[in-house]
């Protein structure tokens, strides 16, 4: 097992997850999303908007309602998606606000592209006629923290509001930020999560990199050709202590962060940073590899990611731990991936079930870890959820039952 390098985090008190919600291509409610996951049903479809590449995307089904008039300045696809998920946790956020005080609840979000979808529309109009849409509000729609401000207003909280943007690791790293803010006694609770919406720049950017597949992605398969992009919003409410009248069954036990220091857009070939992130998460949670029952992999379905990540996982766990990539269900949710997959990890703990890893067969023979296209009913006490990003930014979140 490789030893983590550099600064070590101390053991941290586990944080109960007191509310959670996710919306994405699998559904418009958390229930719909998890039912589709249980049924092994993919949400990937051809895009319904104008984009000059052949691919499948994970789009939220149906139309999204405009924001209420009082928040009209923030209205954009990103904000609408976020509100769809936020509405599910609002009552619990209000409860936490009453419990801890307005100033002791933070909003910490992760996103990769923020309101870029709104800016694309404004830019293309400007290129066409020299004007930007009258309803385009750069500071509230494009701004990475505009959504945080909106959620802060809807939640009525006055604690810190900021947005991490470390590409595809963003909404895993928000969990570590919440841990530190609570440990430092700055806050007592945080609404954390991730949101990203489909836009042309990401689709055409990944196409330019040569990693966008024209069919459904197949993580860890010998026939994998690349990624699909998806959109979604996911939130978790983390608190210093559980609610005595409603004990929490799933907790954040540890978070590990590391940097590859290798390449801007390719992982270290042996998954060095990935292994460090997982090791740090386990060390923080006080468990070793034997204490892990399941891994929700980053598993983007690119040749390089899946090869490097499988080496990293194998170096720590051999082929003992069931591994799943859920990218075949939702597409790669970029800045929302970590938050969404943390909720999939919660569901695995609650249901004692490892979901199918869609499209893995035939499995790449060089992938020496246990990935299968069948669901498995087994005890799931602790799950690692991995997210890795451009710039070599890695995070692994350890989620599990009551410690």
């Amino acid at each position, binding site marked *: 097992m490789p030893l983590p390098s550099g600064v070590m985090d101390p053991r941290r008190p586990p944080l109960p997850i007191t509310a959670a919600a996710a919306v994405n291509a699998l559904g418009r409610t958390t229930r719909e999303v998890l039912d589709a996951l249980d049924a092994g049903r993919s949400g990937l479809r051809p895009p319904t908007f104008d984009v000059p590449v052949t691919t499948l995307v994970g789009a939220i089904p149906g139309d999204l309602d405009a924001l209420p008039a009082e928040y009209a300045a923030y209205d954009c696809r990103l904000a609408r998606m976020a509100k769809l998920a936020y509405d599910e946790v609002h009552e619990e956020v209000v409860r936490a606000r009453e419990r801890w005080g307005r100033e002791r609840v933070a909003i910490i979000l992760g996103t990769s592209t923020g309101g870029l979808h709104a800016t694309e529309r404004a830019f*293309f109009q400007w290129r066409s006629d020299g004007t930007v849409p009258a309803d385009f509000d750069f*500071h509230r729609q494009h701004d990475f923290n505009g959504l945080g401000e909106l959620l802060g207003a809807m939640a009525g909280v006055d604690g810190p509001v*900021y947005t991490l*943007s470390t590409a595809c690791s963003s909404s895993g790293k928000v969990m570590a930020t919440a841990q530190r803010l609570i440990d430092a006694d700055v806050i007592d609770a945080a609404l954390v999560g991730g949101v990203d919406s489909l836009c042309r*720049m990401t689709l055409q950017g990944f196409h330019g*990199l*040569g990693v966008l597949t024209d069919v459904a992605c197949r993580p860890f398969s010998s026939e994998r050709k690349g990624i699909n992009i998806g959109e979604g919003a996911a939130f978790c409410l983390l608190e210093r202590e559980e609610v005595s009248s409603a004990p929490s069954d799933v907790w954040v036990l540890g978070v590990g962060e*590391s*940097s590859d220091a290798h390449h*801007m857009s390719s992982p270290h070939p042996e998954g060095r940073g990935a292994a460090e992130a997982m090791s740090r998460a386990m060390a923080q949670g006080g468990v070793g590899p034997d204490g892990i029952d399941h891994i929700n992999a980053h598993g983007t379905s690119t040749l390089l990611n899946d090869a490097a990540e499988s080496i990293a996982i194998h170096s720590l766990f051999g082929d003992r731990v069931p591994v799943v990539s859920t990218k075949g269900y939702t597409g790669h949710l970029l800045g929302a991936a970590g938050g969404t997959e943390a909720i999939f990890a919660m569901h695995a703990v609650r249901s004692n079930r490892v979901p199918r890893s869609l499209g893995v067969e035939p499995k790449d023979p060089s992938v020496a870890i246990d990935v299968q296209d069948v669901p498995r009913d087994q005890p799931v006490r602790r799950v690692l959820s991995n997210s890795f990003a451009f710039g070599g930014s890695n995070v692994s979140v350890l989620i599990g039952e009551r410690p």
Partner: protein
Amino acid sequence: MIAVNGIGFWAPGFAGLGAFRAGEADRDLTMPKCEVVTARARRGTSRIGRMLAEVTTQAAADASVDLGAVPTVYASAWGEIDIMINLLGQIADGDVGLSPLRFKHSVHNSASGMVSIAAGNRTFSTALAAGRKTFEQGVLEALTYLTTTDADHVILAVAEDRLPAPLDRFGEYEALAVAFCFGTDAREGAHGTLSFPKRTGEPFRPDLPELYAENPTAFALPVLDALANPEGAEGLALSAAPRPFAIDVLSAEQSRTEP
């Protein structure tokens, strides 16, 4: 107490804090040297990416900490907006696949990746945004990391480049980058100290120089002033949330007299 052991500074015309304080502008200086990153690795990067890398390097050197091991926090409200607009221009021009060199540097953590790769730094690094409060929230992220881990230093680098057209209608200001190397103990040559956490204080709404007033990074300027001028520090507090969560900034001279 948190020590400010190192400072980095870059703005068009000013290669460092000394030149800025002296008001000695070099009108030909429009791009930081950013020598920590190789010329090859600088391809496809933006000016703000180089600004962040430059001030991070300066702050590490000023504090005599190893850039290959120090944790880093990068903060910018709008980050790589110049590359985003460049890529949207490629789409508008009919390009199907976008420039991979530009795309991989379009992420908000581009500077984090650049510096960690250049320096071989495998430890903690993050990148954040918080609109007009980006500097204050960056201080919060950096100091909560420093005070809840066994790290002895952390660097906060904050920067904003000018907004490109058509977004310049939403804010016109000069570019600016500042970095602080915070430490758990003051080293020789420390610039001053902060008291953290402290939950009192007025919201942080200083008068900002007109040239930088709309640049969120400008909120670092009064802190630099406070560190340099003992009288200027009196009552200065960063409010890192809408309600009182404050960080007192004390000059080196004041901090010597604090209990």
